[in-house]
């Protein structure tokens, strides 16, 4: 009369599945070949090409392109955007995940749906929304002009658009995890006399930290790489409102191949670093 049925040992489960799912050799090898050649053709090859193109006129030309004031300004703006966006969305994401997994309130499912909105709307439309709100002809346009606040065609607009686009990453990582964990550990901490803040720091945060870092990482990668929404609100003013992705586009349109690909190589490098960190985080999560 066992009250709990013991879950099957995961290793055993995998072994059993493997036996059941054993396909013929030719099926396995051709599937592997298709996957590998797809990744080679569509991911590795372009990535290599970015590096080759960036270095096509020698290392000096590459460094010259990178140390150009406009490029440096673009890198600075990109970093600034990420630096403001990522902490903001970390806080928003944790708050949203907390509200959704810990409280019962009316409109909760609506909120859950709205969190996904930036994922489901085309980034260009997200950008346009901000133009309609804060542009010269927009809803708040007159007020903003009267108070000399510049949002569209300025860094603040770029940051706003990026915050909107990257909002879901942290919340999306945390909600399923926090739902699965339940709130009993937190209730236990409260019953032991811990304050709400202490409970969050000492109990909740350590339990969600890997998922949180993972979300922050994805959020950061998108914040630095976002093109569509930022493109609409930026106005492409060289040295002022060009982020790195926009800078790459401008250079490419002007046939400055080395400049374009030098910028692209930084973004590609960022992607590789993100990928490595992501793998490390996933490995850490699996270890727990």
């Amino acid at each position, binding site marked *: *009369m*066992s*009250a*709990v049925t013991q879950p099957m040992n995961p290793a055993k489960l995998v072994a059993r599945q493997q036996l059941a799912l054993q396909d013929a050799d030719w099926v396995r090898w051709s599937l592997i070949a298709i996957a590998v050649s797809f990744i080679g053709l569509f991911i590795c090859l372009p990535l290599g090409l970015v590096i080759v193109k960036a270095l096509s006129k020698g290392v000096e030309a590459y460094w010259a392109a990178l140390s150009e004031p406009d490029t440096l300004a673009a890198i600075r703006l990109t970093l600034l955007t990420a630096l403001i966006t990522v902490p903001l969305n970390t806080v928003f994401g944790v708050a949203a995940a907390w509200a959704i997994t810990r409280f019962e309130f009316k409109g909760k499912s609506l909120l859950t749906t709205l969190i996904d909105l930036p994922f489901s709307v085309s980034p260009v439309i997200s950008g346009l929304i901000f133009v309609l709100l804060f542009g010269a002809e927009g809803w708040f346009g007159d007020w903003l002009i009267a108070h000399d606040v510049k949002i569209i065609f300025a860094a603040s607009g770029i940051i706003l658009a990026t915050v909107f686009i990257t909002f879901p990453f942290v919340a999306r990582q945390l909600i399923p995890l926090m739902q699965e964990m339940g709130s*009993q*550990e937190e*209730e*236990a*901490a*409260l*019953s*032991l*006399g*811990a*304050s709400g803040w*202490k409970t969050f720091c*000492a*109990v909740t945060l*350590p*339990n969600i930290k890997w998922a949180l870092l993972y979300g922050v990482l994805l959020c950061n990668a998108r914040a630095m790489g976002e093109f569509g929404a930022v493109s609409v609100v930026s106005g492409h003013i060289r040295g002022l409102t060009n982020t790195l992705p926009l800078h790459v586009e401008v250079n490419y349109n002007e046939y400055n191949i080395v400049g374009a690909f030098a910028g692209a190589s930084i973004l590609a490098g960022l992607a590789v670093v993100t990928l490595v960190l992501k793998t490390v985080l996933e490995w850490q999560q699996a270890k727990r």
Partner: protein
Amino acid sequence: MSILLSNISKNFGTFAALDHINLEIPEGELVALLGPSGCGKTTLLRIIAGLESADQGRVLISGQDRTDHDVSQRGIGFVFQHYALFRHMTVFENVAFGLRVKPRRDRPSNDVITKKVHALLELVQLDWLHDRYPDQLSGGQRQRIALARALAVEPAVLLLDEPFGALDASVRKDLRQWLRNLHHDLNVTSIFVTHDQEEAMEVASQVVVLNHGRIEQQGSPSDIYDHPANAFVSRFIGQTNIFDMEDQDTDWLQTAGLSTAHQKGKIVHVRPHDIVIEKSSANSDAFVTLKDWQHLGALIRIELVKTGANGPAASVYAEMPNDQFKRLHLNKGDKVDLRIRHAHWFH
């Protein structure tokens, strides 16, 4: 410390989880809140703890109104069904948590904390596990650690939500006895929730039977077993045979010794061990046949079928000690005579 609940009600939407509960628990008792699932027992426990708020009513702990106190300010210890140990902390840190989060002026020094935690771990006989993590422990060990953790803050009241619900049967048996002994040593007022009547009878000094958000009966285990207040309690506490005196042909019950002289209702409950069976003589006109039997350890449960001219066939269960049954030399299909020693009448 004593607990007084006055007029507690709680609704979830239109569902009344608790309906005007009044309950007094004297100091030092070990009380079981017993009832079927959905009867409101866990909700009541969580309201006492402050993890849930009542729609109306007051919670008094040792005479002081704690209704508006936060869970962290109530001075309770709570033990969860699924342990709720902090999974990223060692056993030692789990037990130390309640002491470490005290405001600076009340916080004991590290030496004191270390001593106290080891003393508590000794108390639950698990000091040798102090540097393990919760997922390296068995269910029974986890629950004992959870209890040590709750005791660390010296709660006025210990609340346990189905503390043995997630454990294997054999571990559950051991821990019941252990909890009873621990309570005997510490004498802290404790309330535990259970849906297992056997567990409630075995562990508790007082049992509160709940159903549909109301208290059906409160009393000592033997009170509740011997004098059930109503048909629900009688049915819920242990096996019983139920006869409806209006629907059924009742002559055979009277033949079996059921006295209708003091009839106090139309429903009769007879516990299996209150039915004595004897082998009928060959030419008896007995209506009752032995159908089957099962071993329940020291007892035998005997399944009887009443047949006869009047009324439908009915199953009757009786229980008797093993050796007594053997002496009767009964076989399946034998006719038997019944004697009812005791019955409860309900409306």
